[in-house]
């Protein structure tokens, strides 16, 4: 690891100075403090002694993204290193194991400092080589393949799902895959992606995308975890509103005991003249078990990544998202997600402030509300988290 760091640094120092250098290094250093509070009333009294209801965590987070360009060739490597301290580390084994996990073919996750107090972890989440020639593009390695068209929920993202609440993972995880793209003309593209063995799940899919009447549309056919799947999506507009949607249907596979599943999402978005960006969306996820209510929240905590066949924790979810630039330095956003299942609600406000050209500060909250099964279905706050983040970009 150390060697790699040295190479990255040398590469950047020596070569980045020139404008047309084939090397490009970007990244950041972040500090994140988080405080979370869980409402005792949602837990039976016998669990109170063994559960910690107030947790403080802090972490230092460094990222390097290095690119090398030569003719039609491009190479990319991205790595994420985090130094943890606080309640998560004190959880011990359960936290280490969740963290030091590489879903890909190669184990590029390294946990090399583990004590009762601190934990240091590095994962290489991008490592790919790309060759482009005329209408073709080939990329092999750990990469991010985004096929989704809608804003938050993306049933079409067969290869790379992510956890919307894990806002500190801006780059989102990569997948070990081979991707071949073919661009027959200016508006259409045909794409093949094969990703074997991600969490022992094999994925292979073909995508066709084109544009007509100011609409982008796409069709997807493939296999995901022993199920054949067909899907499609669009991104267009109605008046000034953006109008997007996508869906995937998974065929039943009796041999593997997989039932049919439909996952569908749609949204509209609009930008007002004062800069307010509004998104209204909806997700139908047939995979999600019904009646979980507040219990489902545990499935999105701690940066867990969901799957394309089950991209969110509830069957029906409505989404409202507002983003408003108060001025070029201050940006506010507010996202709310609501599911009728237990009246489960997540409210996610954040405000960012640019301290100087490369320094930003972010204050965010995540509030989880739901009916309490233990208190006559009283609707209350289940958990509240607050975050403070300082970021230096380079």
């Amino acid at each position, binding site marked *: 690891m150390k060697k790699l760091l040295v190479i990255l640094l040398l590469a950047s120092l020596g070569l980045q100075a020139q404008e047309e250098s084939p090397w490009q290094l970007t990244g*950041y250093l972040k500090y994140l403090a988080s405080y979370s509070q869980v409402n005792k009333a949602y837990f039976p009294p016998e669990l109170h002694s063994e559960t910690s209801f107030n947790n403080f965590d802090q972490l230092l987070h460094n990222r390097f993204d290095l690119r090398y*360009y030569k003719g039609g060739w491009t190479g990319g490597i991205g790595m994420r290193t985090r130094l943890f301290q606080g309640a998560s580390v004190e959880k011990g084994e359960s936290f280490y194991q969740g963290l030091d996990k590489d879903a890909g073919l190669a184990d590029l996750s390294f946990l090399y400092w583990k004590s009762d107090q601190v934990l240091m972890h590095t994962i290489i989440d991008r490592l790919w080589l790309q060759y482009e020639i005329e209408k073709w593009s080939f990329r092999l390695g750990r990469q*991010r393949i985004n096929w989704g068209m809608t804003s938050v929920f993306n049933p079409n993202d067969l290869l790379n799902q992510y956890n919307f609440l894990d806002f500190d993972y801006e780059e989102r995880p990569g997948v070990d895959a081979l991707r071949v793209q073919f661009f027959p003309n*200016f508006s259409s593209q045909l794409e093949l992606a094969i990703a074997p063995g991600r969490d022992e799940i094999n994925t292979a899919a073909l995508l066709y995308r084109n544009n007509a009447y100011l609409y982008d549309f796409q069709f997807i056919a493939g296999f995901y975890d022993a199920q054949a799947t067909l899907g499609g999506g669009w991104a*267009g507009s109605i008046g*000034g509103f953006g109008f997007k949607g996508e869906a995937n249907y998974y065929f039943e596979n009796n041999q593997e005991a997989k039932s049919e599943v439909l996952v569908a999402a749609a949204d509209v978005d609009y*930008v007002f003249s004062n*800069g307010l960006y509004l998104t209204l969306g909806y997700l139908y996820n047939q995979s999600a078990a019904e009646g979980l209510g507040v219990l489902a929240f545990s499935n999105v905590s701690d940066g867990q990544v969901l799957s394309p066949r089950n991209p969110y924790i509830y069957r029906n979810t409505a989404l409202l998202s507002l983003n408003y630039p108060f001025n*070029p330095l201050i940006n506010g956003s507010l996202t709310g997600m609501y599911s009728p299942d237990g009246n489960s609600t997540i409210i996610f406000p954040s405000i960012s402030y640019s301290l100087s050209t490369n320094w930003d500060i972010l204050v965010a909250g995540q509030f989880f509300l739901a009916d309490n099964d233990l208190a006559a279905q009283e609707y209350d706050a289940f958990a509240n988290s607050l975050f403070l983040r300082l970021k230096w970009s*380079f």
Partner: protein
Amino acid sequence: MKTSILSLFLLLMGFSTTSTTDPTEIVQKAEDKLRGEQSYSEMSMTIVRPSWNRTIKMKSWSRGTDFSLILITAPARDKGTVFLKKRKEIYNWIPSIERQIKLPPSMMNQSWMGSDFTNDDLVTESSLVKDYDHELLGEVTVNGREAYQIKLVPKEDAAVIWGKVVLHIDKTEYLHLKTEFYDEDEELVSTMEAKKIGTLGGKTLPTIIEMQPVSEPGNKTILEYQELDFDVNIPREYFTTQYMKRVR
């Protein structure tokens, strides 16, 4: 938002040597020469406020008013972000997650990257020639240069946000030296001024342009061109979502 800076060129620049005093013809000259042409530019935009300022640097390619591509090169946080305008469609490429996002058409309405320019200033589909009646007010001196002062009043059915526009067009180079934008009550809203004239791509053009809102003294937006070339041939394939992902 970050849609096109092409129309800014359309609004600000023009060059011709033939002399004329017909106001419509003068405005036509300041606009016409660039319509449908291609351009490449490298520029920085500085937003100035009484207590702070921020600079964004970018490269931009354009073909007519239909196609433009903007690559943000600074600050570090936004480096590599791309905006593609393809006729009436706008796309955003976010390099960190390698994701292409189609933006709603209403994105055109808002202020451009928090600056004092609105998108109507930048990608105005209205035409200074066709949508306004022109009146030559006289000849004035702007920053030491001789200019025609021309009053523009929108035609009745024109979809234009200004009540009146006063242009100051350089008599020899046909450059927009100063433009005053008035609202429907004929109140001055903002002033755009060429602060420095220089040579870009072998031509005499404004290299520094300032936009200043009247109601907020101390606020302004400064555009500075490091490069601006209209004598370029930019392939149509640059303005595709495929190319958006590889431009650097």
